[in-house]
């Protein structure tokens, strides 16, 4: 299996985890996409540092050959899969514990009223 195929499978698996298995539906959320945009920017910078310098190298036979910031485009799929899976688990565990917001010691029992503005700003 080439990196291309593995990376596509990785993205599909992450989407399945998000939408079907754990139903966190992160890919439907603005918060996810804004976070991902920030993360992918730093990924491109890291890829440039590591791949342009040859710290990491890729066998040309297993990639389609298109590169961004020296790294194969497959790396962006790999990164998307990694990030989405991580965040899906984070959100899912948060749901299960009911501690959705700034959670240390609080059980999130509807303490806030309307217009909750997110974690950490108590």
């Amino acid at each position, binding site marked *: 299996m080439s990196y291309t195929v593995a990376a596509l499978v990785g993205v599909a698996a992450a989407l399945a985890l998000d939408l079907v298995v754990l139903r966190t539906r992160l890919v439907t959320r603005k918060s996810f996409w804004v976070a991902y945009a920030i993360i992918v920017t730093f990924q491109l910078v890291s890829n440039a540092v590591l791949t342009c310098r040859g710290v990491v190298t890729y066998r040309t036979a297993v990639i389609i050959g298109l590169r961004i910031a020296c790294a194969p485009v497959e790396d962006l799929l790999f990164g998307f899969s990694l990030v989405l899976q991580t965040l899906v688990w984070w959100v899912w565990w948060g*749901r299960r514990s009911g501690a959705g917001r700034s959670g240390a010691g609080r059980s999130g029992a509807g303490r806030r009223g309307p217009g909750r503005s997110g974690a950490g700003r108590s």
Partner: protein
Amino acid sequence: MRATYLIVLGVCFLGTLPLEVVLRTRVYRRPRRLLLSLAPVLLVFLGWDVWAIGSHQWGYDLRQMSGVVLPGRLPLEELLFFLVIPACAILTLEAVRVVRGWPVGDEPAPPADDAGGGTGPARLPDAR
């Protein structure tokens, strides 16, 4: 330079630390949730990495790295990568939540008498 990869990871780690401290994202302060989130991802991606290394899909110039190699010919930096990067991703998501107030999907449903003050559909897994 042997420290290149470690420096990249260090920059990610140190660069996101202010989010925890200043924005109070409380990611490191919820270590159980963090470790539970990292564990399945670590399993999947270390497995992928070892497989890819073994089938020569990618490789590493150990002269530019620490030179410490784990079983499966996995460079130490790769293990650290799959700990640091996911943690940084979580910190980023939580920072977006703090700054913008947008939901991420783990918010408890509002109380029954709260007439829709929330920012998204109330959704509890038990309801399904």
